[in-house]
């Protein structure tokens, strides 16, 4: 039974063994680790979700079909009361000065800052919302694009980006068909943002085949959120189709001015804002974004493939509404990484996979 020889020079090996067992047992007998299955699940889900994501990228369809209901666009009977007074997220309004300053300093890679940002023309950073697949269906993420202003108007510029420019983050997309344009037109009353969608002959009154109901509603929300953010106002949005009124757009009822849909149902609940997709950074670097995380808990991993190189967590400033978070990634070897930020799973693995956003970053030596 006792495979080990007696301790040299000591009598009573069995006795010693028993004593050692009791000592070590007692040393940790009151170590009671806290429940961790939930966070283990959250992490194994993140890594399998990432694998899944890379498989279906480009398929264009929602990754996970869920029972998530995207709230129908709210129709306002009184166009002077946008939002019904609900406290929307900071995200729905305008970029904070802090954030836009950073974005200005560091134009997103993948764009051609030299081509677009010619000296002498009006260049501005505009907020642009894009569609991304999440564990709860399609939701909106926001990017900042630094571009020439179209006709000097940030709202039209942001809308043009939203419908026809590819997002910097390849996990996002726009579901508006190619060739479609959207711009603000002057139309009374002035406290309504009127967006004219030019279809170039495509039948966009009805929902196109291949576009789900959720995708259609989110595509409409994409323009509402983008326009309101660029205008820094919650004025309701009236849609025109090819210059005139329409009852529906992509099959979504739009005859009345629309308030933005509930951010909880429209926005992805975790965003990374800095660093942008494809950024080159040097360690230490700061990560910031917005998250409506369960208990304000924001977790992050720096991954290489399926391997977690570094991880940590932080708290968003507030729970349950899109609130700023930031953290610093200290020492990390140079190389290419995927930064994953996500919330924790309140159900301990029973419910939806967590909200997350990912960015590819290169850490320079």
């Amino acid at each position, binding site marked *: 039974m006792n495979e080990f020889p007696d301790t040299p020079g000591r009598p009573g090996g069995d006795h010693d063994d028993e004593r050692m067992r009791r000592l070590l047992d007692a040393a940790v007998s009151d170590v009671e*680790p806290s429940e961790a299955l939930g966070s283990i699940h959250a992490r194994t889900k993140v890594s399998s979700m990432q694998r899944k994501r890379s498989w279906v990228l480009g398929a264009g369809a929602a990754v996970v079909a869920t029972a998530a209901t995207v709230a129908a666009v709210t129709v306002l009977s009184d166009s002077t009361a946008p939002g019904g007074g609900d406290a929307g997220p900071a995200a729905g309004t305008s970029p904070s000065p802090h954030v836009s300053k950073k974005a200005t300093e560091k134009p997103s890679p993948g764009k051609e800052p030299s081509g677009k940002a010619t000296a002498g023309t009006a260049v501005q950073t505009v907020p642009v919302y894009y569609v991304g697949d999440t564990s709860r269906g399609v939701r909106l993420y926001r990017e900042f694009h630094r571009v020439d202003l179209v006709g000097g108007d940030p709202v039209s510029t942001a809308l043009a980006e939203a419908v026809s420019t590819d997002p910097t983050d390849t996990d996002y997309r726009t579901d508006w068909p190619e060739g479609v344009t959207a711009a603000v037109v002057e139309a009374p009353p002035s406290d309504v943002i009127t967006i004219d969608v030019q279809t170039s002959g495509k039948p966009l009154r009805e929902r196109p085949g291949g576009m789900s109901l959720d995708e259609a509603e989110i595509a409409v929300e994409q323009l509402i959120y983008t326009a309101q953010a660029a205008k820094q106002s919650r004025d309701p949005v009236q849609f025109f189709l090819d210059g005139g009124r329409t009852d529906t757009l992509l099959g979504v009822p739009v005859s009345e001015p629309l308030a933005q849909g509930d951010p909880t149902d429209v926005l992805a609940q975790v965003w990374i804002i800095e660093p942008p997709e494809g950024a080159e950074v040097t360690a230490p670097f700061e990560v910031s974004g917005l998250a409506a995380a369960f208990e304000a808990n924001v977790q992050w991993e720096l991954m290489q493939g399926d391997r977690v190189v570094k991880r940590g967590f932080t708290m968003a400033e507030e729970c349950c509404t899109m609130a700023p978070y930031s953290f610093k990634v200290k020492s990390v070897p140079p190389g290419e990484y995927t930064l994953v930020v996500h919330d924790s799973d309140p159900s301990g693995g029973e419910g939806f996979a967590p909200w997350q956003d990912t960015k590819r970053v290169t850490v320079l030596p």
Partner: protein
Amino acid sequence: MSTAPRWDADTAVDELYAAHYRQLVRLSVLLVHDMETAEEVVQDSFVAMHDRWRKLRDPDKGLAYLRQTVVNRSRSVLRHRGVQARHIPPVLPDVRGADEDVLVAERRKVVLDALRELPGRQREVLALRYYLDLSEADIAEVLGISRGAVKSHASRGVAALRHLLEDAS
């Protein structure tokens, strides 16, 4: 073991967590000395096992992998902590509060402190042998060393620990 259940990776995590999580955290506390690090090490190990389950596919192999990963990661945490940290006062595992039996806490601290003074291999062999009750062959496999080396680490470790504890009392 041919009747081993066919678990998928998630089931493996759930089952092995339920049966072994606490014990693995305690094992890691014996090695790294503090609770927070131990919990992190063990959670990392479960995530690693989940990622690797396609290759393991068997509960026994899963558990062996977990033990090995916990020991390896505990060791690498200590290595990164470096020499300067070795003399920082230890963080006791989750002291529960004022009503805890002071004597018990004291004794536990003495043993953990003494373990900390041992060379890494001796500490690992003692923890695997006396806390997990692993056989010599299993310890050799977990640590990737020969059975002879396990024997000699064990006997030297026991002698050193006894010596340290006698000094402390």
